[in-house]
């Protein structure tokens, strides 16, 4: 693994860093501190700039029209696009484009024509619905939503919880139990249009997150055509598990971007803030917090880049991706926590972005597989499956 960034990677990194600093951060000065969207005119103007930069659709594979960059570069850029107030859950307010759901790349051609390609063109949006009130970490056992075959259709009944974007989406992926006698091998993934009869978004679920609130869904005799089964019946969990693991890497990188910015703010503040006649930067208690931040940032960064490198080179990477997600989300939380401590009372106000990052980072230890599941994956891989 090459430890030095290439000239191209440095250039892209600097370009995106400058874009965030000059185009995104000034807009935030006029927005509510919890805002998750910008004026549509600003959005369109910035999308045009990103397209000129050749970076629109950062998360889209090159063969589907995304920029031809590898996963290491993508992760480096994810560390840059998150370095602003809304950056964790609304990096650059979406002007770098969406990436579609990983599972849809495994759809058949008919499904790709109806769902994937329009999504990549920005004409449709989607949601992902796995978690239910009964749990999200062990969906094989927790899923109670059922789908029963009826002629050429399936009839879905049940509910989903903590689902982002379902109220605005055109369609979504819904996982339902199709064989009650099986656990993991009795779940099927369906592509469901949100205008179908029997599909309801019942409420907004308010969480620590300011951007992209979650929703609760209910399905009442929701009929879905058999041609909308994604993958094979009863094999919903087998779809795109490789792509799902891969998506954890830029997810982890975005957490680090926020933490890097918090560390930068802490160092700047320590150099100007005086207590008892001297600068914070001269206080050993503050110095050690900054050093601990540096340890967290650098160790997590290498885990993220190692995972990205292996995934991008066709090497086994599930252990590395799990470690990257686990360490980056937990380290970023610690870094922002220390940054707040260094900033004192200012750190917990909405005048600074730290309080928002503190809230939203807490969710990252749970979303996309909680820390405990990541540890389980690593344990299974390093000890061996026979002990689980």
């Amino acid at each position, binding site marked *: 693994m090459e430890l030095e960034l290439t000239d191209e990677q440095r250039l892209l990194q600097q370009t995106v860093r400058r874009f965030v600093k000059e185009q995104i951060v000034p807009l935030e000065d006029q927005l509510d*501190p*919890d805002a998750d*969207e910008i004026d549509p005119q600003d959005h369109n103007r910035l999308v045009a700039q990103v397209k000129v930069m050749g970076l629109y659709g950062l998360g889209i594979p090159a063969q589907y029209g995304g920029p031809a960059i590898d996963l290491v570069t993508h992760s480096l850029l994810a560390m840059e696009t998150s370095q602003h107030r809304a950056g964790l859950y609304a990096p650059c307010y979406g002007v770098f484009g969406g990436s579609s759901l990983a599972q849809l790349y495994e759809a058949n051609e008919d499904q790709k024509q109806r769902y994937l390609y329009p999504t990549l063109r920005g004409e449709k949006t989607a949601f992902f619905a796995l978690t239910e009130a009964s749990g999200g970490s062990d969906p094989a056992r927790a899923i109670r939503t059922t789908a029963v075959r009826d002629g050429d259709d399936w009839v879905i009944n049940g509910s989903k919880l903590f689902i982002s974007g379902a*109220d605005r989406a055109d369609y979504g992926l819904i996982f339902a139990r199709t064989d009650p006698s099986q656990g993991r091998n009795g779940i099927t993934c369906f592509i469901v249009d*949100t205008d179908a009869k029997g599909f309801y*978004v019942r409420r907004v679920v308010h*969480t620590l997150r*300011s951007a992209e*609130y979650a929703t609760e869904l209910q399905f009442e005799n929701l009929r879905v055509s058999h041609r909308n089964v994604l993958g094979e019946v009863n094999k919903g969990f087998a779809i795109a598990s490789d792509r799902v693991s891969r998506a954890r890497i830029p997810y982890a990188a975005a957490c680090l971007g926020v933490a890097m910015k918090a560390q930068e703010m802490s160092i700047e503040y320590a150099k100007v803030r005086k207590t008892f006649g001297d600068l914070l930067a001269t206080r050993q208690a503050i110095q050690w917090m900054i050093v601990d931040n540096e340890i967290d940032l650098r160790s997590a960064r290498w885990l993220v880049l190692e995972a990205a490198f292996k995934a991008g080179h066709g090497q086994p990477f599930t252990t590395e991706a799990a470690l990257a997600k686990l360490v980056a989300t937990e380290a970023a939380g610690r870094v922002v926590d220390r940054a707040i401590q260094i900033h004192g009372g200012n750190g917990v106000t*909405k005048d600074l972005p730290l309080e928002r990052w503190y809230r939203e980072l807490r969710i990252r230890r749970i979303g996309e597989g909680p820390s405990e599941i990541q540890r389980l994956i690593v344990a299974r891989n390093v000890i061996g499956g026979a002990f689980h």
Partner: protein
Amino acid sequence: MPVRMNKDWIPLTPESVKRLKGQLGVYQIQDPAGQVVFIGYAGGRSLYGLRGELERELASRGPGHSFRCEVNMQYLTRWKELLMVHAADHRELPAENRKLPAPGLGRISPV
């Protein structure tokens, strides 16, 4: 927390607004005819939070209006939820919200 704000209406008067604290949250304004005409929020940039926003509402409206509010740290997501609930119940946003740039809203079907 119920999806719909179902607190009692309070007359929009200097005395009632003065009793409010400067917290973050959401509020609704009802006109003398009993119609909800505006749903707003006191966010991170509001001076004096709910009290400041309701003082502004009081100064800009005639007599006979009333309000109800909810202290809520997640004021933006709650605000959007209240707008979507109103749209679901009445097939349109409150009259004064319709005149403003609309936030990105989805569709919900509250029970």
